[in-house]
């Protein structure tokens, strides 16, 4: 866990005080809606179809049980008793009243939580691997660097009014679980030939109307230079990013227009003039931040204890164990993923009651720590393997042990037209219908790893471009239609999906997904060839033929 101190608490108190004044000015008419809009956005407050929505940052997806309980409390007191976890490791409450927002923010600030910079044209919440600090394949804990950068961009006086939003992710593992290449800026920790650790810097990724994967502009950046380099990138973007067209304002367009090589040169020139100034990192500063990440006092345990082996006799437990439990870097421990995708429900929703119970389970079995992943699931990062049967029973009792992690029903979806004023089409009911169609565990498991991503509009909050199956809602003559693409992925081999053909109406989306699943089962060479690998091998055409043969 990251330990907050009086500076963090002071800042949040000052922020809440400021926001209280802004709400009062809005309610009195001193601020018009246009002026208030940007101010509320920078506190994570959107005006949606039915009410205001509050988005709360969960930096690098790490939560304490105390924080989760407070989220449960806020959900109960100001909302309708539930919250929605998002693809940026945040949580949203969709039914909050404007006049109550300052009180909700004050309650959150008590546990170090806030909505600062979760929306608006500023640097957004930093994200990273939800398994950071416990993943066996990472070279070091990326959260230390995410926290350093997060602090640096918090209320940054130069970069709080950028052309558009700016998303940063940090990764340090062999396997990319942070979707680095779809970020405006991504920092990947790795070792160079000389054995030193530094960052590969990628810029210009992003989805939306014009999707791009980020390009590497600096293969190896020494750690001491990370803040000055980020500053140089942001300074160029702030000055030269387009502001005349909202759809061309992300840094990806600037990078594309200049060309990555030219952009890299300009960043280099700017960086050279600031790299040895006040932003050069003092090792004492890094050490101070690193020291505030507290790690559990693990016991010395063996892998695969007898109790675990015996518990496998229960087929339901065994299915969950095989699906939702992953290797931990410490022997005898495991990382447990909590599926927020039960059959037929809204992906990413958790009730306040569930949050309270998960906090209790985390206290008892996971050193009081919970993680949020960009797949809209939660994690318990430090569970002793011998406790897994008990943990499973406790999670199963509250409906967060569906063994469908990474399977076809582990769907990522934005809130869509049910909540969002930007959406053209519903996303949640599409996810619910697909989830019902594939509720048969045997079929879902047979299909293996298969990610479905659904966005209700071109802004792509559901990351449809990088779904193995991507579904995008569009509006045609007042009706909801859906474009289907396949072959996208957001990991180390990141790729944008390809459209399979004309959009289909709402009622046919789940049928199309069934056709794609059947086509895959016929086309795959062997049972362990994943859907995404089959698409890569045979291309879109055979899938397209199957889907459109009868349409």
């Amino acid at each position, binding site marked *: 866990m990251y330990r907050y*101190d009086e500076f963090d608490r002071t800042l949040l108190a*000052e922020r809440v*005080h400021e926001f209280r004044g802004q709400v009062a000015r809005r309610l009195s008419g001193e601020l018009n809606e246009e002026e208030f809009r940007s101010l509320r956005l920078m506190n994570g407050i959107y005006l949606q179809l039915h009410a205001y929505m509050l988005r709360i940052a969960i930096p690098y997806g790490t939560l304490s049980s105390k924080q989760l309980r407070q989220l449960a409390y806020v959900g109960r007191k100001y909302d309708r008793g539930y919250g929605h976890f998002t693809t940026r490791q945040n949580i949203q409450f969709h039914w909050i009243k404007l006049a109550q927002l300052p009180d909700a923010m004050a309650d959150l600030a008590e546990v170090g939580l806030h909505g600062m910079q979760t929306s608006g044209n500023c640097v957004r919440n930093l994200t990273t691997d939800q398994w950071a600090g416990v993943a066996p394949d990472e070279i070091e804990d990326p959260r230390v660097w995410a926290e350093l950068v997060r602090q640096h961009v918090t209320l940054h006086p*130069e970069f709080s*009014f950028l052309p558009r939003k700016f998303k940063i992710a940090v990764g340090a593992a062999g396997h990319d679980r942070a979707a680095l290449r779809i970020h405006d800026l991504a920092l990947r920790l790795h070792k160079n030939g000389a054995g030193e650790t530094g960052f590969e810097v990628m810029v210009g990724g992003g989805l939306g109307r014009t999707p791009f994967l980020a390009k590497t502009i600096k293969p190896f950046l020494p750690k001491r230079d990370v803040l000055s380099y980020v500053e140089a990138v942001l300074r160029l973007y702030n000055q030269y990013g387009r502001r005349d067209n909202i759809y061309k304002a992300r840094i990806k367009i600037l990078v594309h227009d200049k060309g990555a090589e030219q952009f890299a040169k300009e960043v280099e020139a700017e960086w050279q003039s600031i790299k040895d100034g006040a*932003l050069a990192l003092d090792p004492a*500063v890094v050490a101070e931040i690193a020291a505030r990440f507290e790690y559990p006092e693990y016991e010395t345990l063996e892998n695969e204890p007898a109790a675990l082996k015996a518990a496998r006799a229960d087929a339901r437990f065994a299915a969950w164990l095989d699906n939702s439990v992953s290797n931990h870097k410490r022997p005898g421990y495991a990382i447990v993923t909590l599926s927020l995708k039960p059959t037929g429900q809204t992906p990413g929703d958790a009730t306040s009651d569930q949050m309270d119970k998960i906090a209790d389970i985390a206290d008892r079995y996971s050193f009081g720590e919970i993680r949020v992943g960009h797949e809209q699931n939660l994690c318990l990062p430090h569970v002793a393997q011998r406790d897994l049967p008990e943990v499973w029973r406790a999670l199963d009792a509250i409906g967060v042990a569906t063994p469908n992690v990474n399977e076809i029903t582990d769907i990522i979806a934005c809130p869509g037209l049910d909540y969002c004023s930007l959406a053209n089409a519903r996303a949640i009911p599409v996810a619910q219908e697909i989830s019902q169609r594939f509720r048969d565990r045997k079929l879902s498991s047979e299909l293996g790893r298969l990610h479905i991503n659904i966005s209700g509009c071109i802004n792509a909050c559901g990351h449809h471009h990088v779904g193995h199956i991507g579904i995008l809602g569009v509006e045609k003559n007042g009706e909801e239609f859906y474009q289907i693409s396949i072959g996208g992925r957001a990991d180390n081999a990141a790729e944008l999906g390809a459209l399979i053909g004309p959009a289909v109406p709402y009622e046919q989306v789940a049928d199309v997904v069934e056709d794609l699943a059947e086509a895959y089962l016929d086309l795959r060479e062997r049972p362990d060839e994943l859907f995404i690998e089959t698409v890569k091998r045979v291309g879109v055409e055979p899938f397209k033929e199957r889907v459109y043969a009868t349409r």
Partner: protein
Amino acid sequence: MPLVRGGRIAADNFTRIEDGAPIPEEGAVLVPAARFLADVEELTRRSAPTGVLWPNDRNVTELAPYLDKLALVALVFPTFKDGRAYSQARLLRERYGYRGEMRATGQVLRDQFSFLLRAGFDSFDVVKATDAEAFEEAARRYSVFFQPTGDGRVTVARERVNRLAGQPRRDRVRA
């Protein structure tokens, strides 16, 4: 539109000169960028102070050679959501060493004051009288600063390290 300078509402002693208009011999003038660059010799020969109104899409490097001849640089916020002038301000102060008055003009609201001060502005054409009156309070809104900028405020990172080293907490520089 009240002007805030030195933390207080003050009279604006600069006269804005339009592009074609003659430049008076006496009195402080604020001149558009293109006019300034065209007439730079004439302007800097005057004994009265000269200021320049610099647009936010023009590189401030062009202005750098003349900074010691300027009494005022006014940077523009066409809307408060357009933050290009923050970068211009920091470059002028921190890279080119400009020490004269630097003014924020355009849509300037109280919610920008702390950012503007940190970026190096020291005078403000404020849109609303209520915001101008609230300057003092708004400027003191925040006491926690994460970024080192040219304003010299001590960063949180530095304070934390000092605290670890057992040094007493310094009084932070306030606006």
